[in-house]
């Protein structure tokens, strides 16, 4: 039983991790939690669904996923233009980004529920069976896929950030946008690249979450508090830290819910967070960044 719960915990953690990676990449540059990410996930889930259902025969999953990834990139750049560009120009503190992202999240959710909220949708299933078992333990197929994809994305991102030129640029801009500009790095291109990556992640998450759950306007936003908690505990825009925190939160939640019920879980969770942050104020990853909201 305990082992089975642990598997469920990892599955839930995988879902959180998928969201948290998108959070963390934006966080690493701008030092704010991009709540609008949740809205983007919902919007991408809807767009992916409409794309898929516009064909007689549903296209393979990978086609839909690639399409929504592209849409996610465009959407992220659009949101950057309408919401963040001006604030950035005025060098406003992180708080403004945070409030703007909340506003954008509400905006997207409302547009979806007012104009597309009449029907509930779901994606065509990817797997013929929802679970498979290994040695008497049941694994959820879609959760396993989500886990594999999150890990793949994570390793790809870590490779990009640590080994490539653009990664080096991202790391420099994360430390200081103005100094890196002086060093001949085009900060605005780097910033757009980061948003594009986040948008791509939102696109993939939209399809995966839409396949796991169903497609409805609050699909992404309802997970934002969890993503927020994970990205802060994980530590300051560190991708690895966010993943570890996501898995930890998933496992802790599953066990607490099993033992204490879902109502007592937030109470205990608050205590755990308080204790953890008191003991280890630098978060899981141990890197410091300032102005975190």
């Amino acid at each position, binding site marked *: 039983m305990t082992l089975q719960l642990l598997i469920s915990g990892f599955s839930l953690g995988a879902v959180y991790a998928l969201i948290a990676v998108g959070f963390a990449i934006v966080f690493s540059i701008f030092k704010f939690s991009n709540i609008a990410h949740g809205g983007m996930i919902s919007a991408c889930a809807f767009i992916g669904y409409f794309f898929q259902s516009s064909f007689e025969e549903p296209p393979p999953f990978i086609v839909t996923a690639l399409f929504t990834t592209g849409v996610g990139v465009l959407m992220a750049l659009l949101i950057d233009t*309408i919401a963040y560009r*001006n604030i950035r120009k005025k060098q406003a503190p992180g708080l403004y980004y945070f409030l703007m992202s909340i506003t954008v999240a509400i905006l997207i959710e409302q547009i979806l529920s007012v104009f597309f909220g009449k029907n509930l949708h779901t994606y065509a299933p990817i797997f013929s069976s929802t679970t498979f078992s290994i040695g008497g333990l049941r694994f959820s197929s879609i959760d396993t896929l989500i886990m594999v994809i999150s890990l793949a994305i994570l390793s790809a991102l870590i490779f990009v950030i640590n080994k490539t030129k653009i990664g080096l640029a991202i790391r420099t801009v994360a430390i200081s946008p103005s100094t890196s500009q002086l060093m001949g790095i085009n900060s605005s291109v780097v910033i757009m690249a980061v948003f594009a990556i986040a948008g791509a992640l939102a696109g993939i998450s939209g399809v995966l979450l839409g396949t796991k759950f169903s497609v409805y306007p609050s699909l992404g936003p309802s997970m934002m508090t969890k993503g927020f*908690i994970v990205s802060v505990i994980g530590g300051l825009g560190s991708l690895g830290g966010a993943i570890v925190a996501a898995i930890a939160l998933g496992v802790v939640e599953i066990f607490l819910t099993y033992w204490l019920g879902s109502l007592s879980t937030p109470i205990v969770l608050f205590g755990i967070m308080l204790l953890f*942050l008191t003991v280890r104020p630098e978060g899981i990853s141990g890197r410091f960044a300032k102005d975190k909201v």
Partner: protein
Amino acid sequence: MSNYQLSLIMLACISIITVCGVFAITSLAGMFSLGQASYMAISAYLTFCIARYQNLPVWVTSIIGLAGCALVAFVIGMPTLRLRRDYLALMTIGFGQMVQSIIILLDKYTNAAIGFSKIPKVNNLVYIILAITVLIVFMVRNLKYSRFGRMCIALKNDDIAARSFGIDVHGLRVKIYVIASLIAGVGGICYGLRNRVISPDAFDWSLSAEMQILLFFGGTNSLTGSVISAACLKVLPEFLKGVKLFGIDLQNCKTIIYCLLIIVVINLRTKGLLGERELSLSFLRGLFAGKPRDREGGEST
């Protein structure tokens, strides 16, 4: 004046009260809290549940409610405010979820998700709420210009420098946190008195976020700006009722319009409508004479 207009005034007043609480904590002390709505919930539930089960008048129990609210704020604030400033938003979200869970766990008394509806009727409520609002705005204004307020602003700008001037940073933070929670608590009681029903999901973190947005819309460090935006934006959707544009009922789009308005204003005027300025007679005179005076308070970020 119809009951409808009176109820709109009350709506605006409650919004002003809660935004004043956010002003105290965010604009003065520079702490970003998403838990103000939880303090509204705590004081409202304490006040009205005790009033019902102990048969006490509301004004007595509201004192108990506010005291309870302050106590909780103190207990939560002591450890939380010792953490790095960045973690406050996180902890307040966690706190909000905890408060909602506790309300649902105590469903024997609070009626959980169905909502607690046995709230006594108060006559001439609009005058009481107006008076409370004026009082709170006045108090927060005084707070801003007092020695205490200036200490808070020093702390907001640089807490190490503030400490080196002999300011007890942690003590000050706890104090302002408790004050802000108390103001939120007053807002929560007014909310209950107006609506006559309170339910846990009304006091979500999104309500706290909305207060923050109202504050920043009006002007980051401007009390008058925040008060104006709190009142205007809250009442704005009322003007969209029954209006149709291109066959779309604007009533359904009120939140969309509201969000777009905020995005436009923050884009054009990042520091909010009034920014750092306070609206006062001398400022107005300067505005109409064509040369706006810089600011009268002297404080800035």
